[in-house]
């Protein structure tokens, strides 16, 4: 094993290289897309290699990486960025401050490796996908910046660094969703994503302020030892509340925004306006899982709190909710987006269940995050390749794509099987572990939700496959297979999607620093899963291919439910209504108050007062020397006199 200090030094390079690429490209090669894309990819690959090196070391020595509140400083390398309490006295006794740096524990190492490798593949893919786009250089700039921010976020050891990078990835997401600056819908989607996540981040911020106020500490590990102390009732201003549940729900609100949990999910489907590699990287594999990552990071802090049950139900509900909407979508990226939401729901559900029980194991949720990153990136990239081939997003205009784009089709199929959880593909091991956990720990409602969602997942993915690959090609022109730079990442990801699930046992050991193990899934899980997938595929086949019951007939028979689904449960409208009416009324009141009282009385009055009193006061400055001496000496006499009168 190489030295820990060497590893830490190397770890700086993982976020450092993409940042360097960003800086270099920004200052020198903004004009040349060719150089920008190659340079960014090269740096990204270097970063990925280093992250694998670190990952390998930790993977082979999980017991040496058991990070606790006592030894966390050994595993982090940071500089004190902002001392919030200027009174600390020496280097040893550190005060309350904001630290920025890198931190190596199994979770962050796993995330580093995962994000860096997927980002590398997507960089390679984008070289082909963005070919000929006038904004290619800008695209790679944003991509580098995003990767840097994401890597910086996962390697943080405190809430504040996490928050800073959390907002940075939000910014990058905004920039990349609105990448096609001439498209109004892209701009709207970007705004929507930004506003919705910012709205949710408000909770995060409130949580951080509470934390700074009450606990005077941002570090994950030192905080986790103070759980008992922090669980007590605190008084902040006029409010009294139990600190930790309040804090965790506030923080979770931020996670809900980023990870698209109901009711903040509305931004994610719209975010598909961005270029497809972006959807794959940011809105499927990495950024949207930040919320789950955060839950895993704070796991010791939230562990065994009742609020975790709420979190689990929110997750389970989102999973089912999103899956139902996916059934009626025709845009391939939208289908995948809803599927992402649904899978994120699974992850949050997994974290919630494990958090609510005593012997909870965060590995359940995190492992799904890990496998999902591979197969969802694969599916998105495959979808991108299909879109590239057919020049449309609409699955009704595709068909028989297998004939034209073989590699894309095969890899897409593998991705689908992995997503549906067909053994032995990756999704099975992670998703069924979550459903299994719900079953074993007595969350029967969640178990049923999870199972139904699994069926729906198979159903809508099969529907998608049937539209894309069966029948005749219904679009215009002749589709063609994509270039090598695009198919190569597909193949790599497909291989990963097959195999990564098999490491489930090792993964648990690795993640817990050798402290926990996970039971392998039993035979019943295999059988249930296979049956569900076959049921889902079979019913979709019957309806959409054989037309045993034609889909039109179903939608006619269930006009209202279909309409509701097509309208996505009116969530957009509800939000819109809320904003338009409630918010506007409130803001009208505020605006009136602002105009009449604040502007009219306070600001204008203040302005008047300031200028008027200043006009009087400036008369004292007569320009005559004797006035100055007189004023000075009189004041002196007054000061001396008051001194002796007292």
């Amino acid at each position, binding site marked *: 094993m190489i030295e820990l200090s060497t590893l830490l030094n190397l770890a700086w390079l993982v976020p450092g290289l993409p940042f360097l690429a960003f800086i270099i490209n920004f200052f020198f090669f903004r004009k040349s897309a060719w150089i920008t894309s190659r340079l960014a990819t090269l740096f990204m690959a270097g970063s990925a290699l280093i992250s694998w090196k670190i990952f390998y070391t930790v993977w082979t020595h999980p017991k040496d990486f058991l990070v606790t509140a006592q030894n966390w400083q050994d595993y982090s390398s940071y500089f004190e960025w902002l001392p919030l309490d200027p009174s600390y006295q020496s280097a040893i006794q550190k005060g309350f401050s904001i630290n920025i740096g890198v931190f190596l524990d199994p979770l962050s190492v796993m995330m580093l490796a995962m994000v860096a490798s997927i980002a590398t593949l997507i960089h390679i893919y984008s070289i082909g996908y963005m070919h000929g786009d006038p904004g290619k250089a800008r695209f790679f700039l944003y991509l580098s910046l995003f990767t840097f921010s994401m890597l910086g976020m996962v390697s943080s050891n405190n809430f504040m660094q996490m928050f800073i990078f959390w907002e940075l990835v939000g910014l990058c997401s905004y920039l990349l969703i609105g990448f096609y600056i001439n498209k109004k819908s892209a701009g709207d989607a970007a705004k929507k994503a930004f506003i919705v996540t910012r709205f949710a981040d408000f909770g995060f911020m409130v949580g951080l302020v509470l934390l700074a106020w009450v606990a005077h500490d941002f570090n994950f590990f030192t905080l986790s030892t103070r759980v008992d102390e922090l669980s007590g009732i605190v008084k902040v201003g006029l409010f009294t509340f139990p600190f930790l549940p309040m804090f965790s729900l506030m923080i979770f609100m931020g996670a809900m925004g980023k990870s698209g949990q109901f009711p903040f999910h509305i931004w994610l489907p719209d975010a598909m306006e961005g270029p497809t590699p972006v959807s794959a990287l940011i809105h499927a594999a990495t950024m949207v899982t930040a919320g789950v990552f955060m839950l895993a990071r704070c796991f010791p802090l939230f562990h065994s709190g009742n609020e975790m049950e709420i979190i689990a139900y929110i997750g389970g509900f989102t999973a089912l909710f999103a899956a139902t909407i996916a059934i009626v979508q025709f845009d391939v990226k939208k289908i995948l987006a809803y599927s992402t939401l649904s899978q994120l729901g699974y992850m949050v559900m997994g974290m919630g269940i494990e958090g609510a029980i005593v012997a909870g194991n965060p590995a359940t949720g995190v492992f799904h995050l890990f496998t999902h990153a591979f197969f969802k990136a694969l599916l998105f990239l495959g979808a991108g390749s299909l879109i590239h081939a057919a020049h449309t997003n609409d699955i009704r205009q595709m068909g028989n794509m297998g004939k034209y784009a073989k590699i894309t089709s095969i890899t897409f199929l593998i991705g689908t099987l992995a997503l549906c959880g067909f053994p032995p593909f990756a999704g099975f091991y992670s998703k069924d572990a979550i459903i299994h956990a719900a079953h074993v720990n007595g969350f029967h409602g969640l178990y049923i939700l999870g199972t139904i969602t699994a069926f729906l997942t198979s159903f809508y993915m099969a529907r998608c496959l049937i539209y894309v690959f069966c029948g005749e090609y219904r679009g215009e022109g002749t589709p063609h297979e994509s270039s090598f730079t695009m198919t190569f990442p597909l193949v790599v990801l497909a291989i990963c999607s097959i195999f990564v699930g098999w490491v489930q046992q090792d993964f648990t050991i690795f993640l817990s620093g050798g402290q926990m193990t996970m039971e392998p899934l039993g035979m019943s899980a295999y059988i249930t899963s296979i049956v569900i997938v076959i049921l889902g595929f079979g019913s979709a086949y019957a309806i959409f291919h054989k037309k045993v019951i034609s889909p039109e007939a179903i939608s006619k028979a269930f006009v209202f439910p279909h309409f509701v689904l097509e309208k996505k449960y009116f969530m957009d409208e509800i939000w819109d209504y809320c904003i338009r009416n409630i918010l506007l009324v409130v803001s009208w009141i505020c605006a009136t108050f602002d105009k009449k009282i604040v502007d009219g009385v306070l600001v204008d009055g203040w302005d008047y007062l300031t200028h008027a009193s200043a006009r009087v006061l*400036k008369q004292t400055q*007569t*320009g*005559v*020397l*004797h006035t100055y001496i*007189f004023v000075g*000496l009189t004041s002196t006499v007054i000061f001396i006199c008051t001194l002796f009168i007292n």
Partner: protein
Amino acid sequence: MITLTHYLVLGAILICIGYLGMMVRKSAIGMLISLEIIFNGINLTAVAFNRFLHPDGVIGQIMVIFIITVAAAETAIALAIMINLFKKFKTIDVDEVNLMKW
């Protein structure tokens, strides 16, 4: 018998006269002279303190020497400024030198 109080009161009177002069004199030269009176009052106080309260050291006397030096240097600079001022303004009445105000 002349006591410390006598010296201190005399010093204080000198200082007050000096500051009064600073306030009422219009001529810059007059103000300069007032300043000298102030410094003399301070000097007197310093040596009186040294003689009556702290006779085992010489700090008060050293102080006086330094003050005299400083006062002399200040006078030199002040006169230089006033000569130039007179060339430009044709007056050394400080109240008429008020281009800058408010």
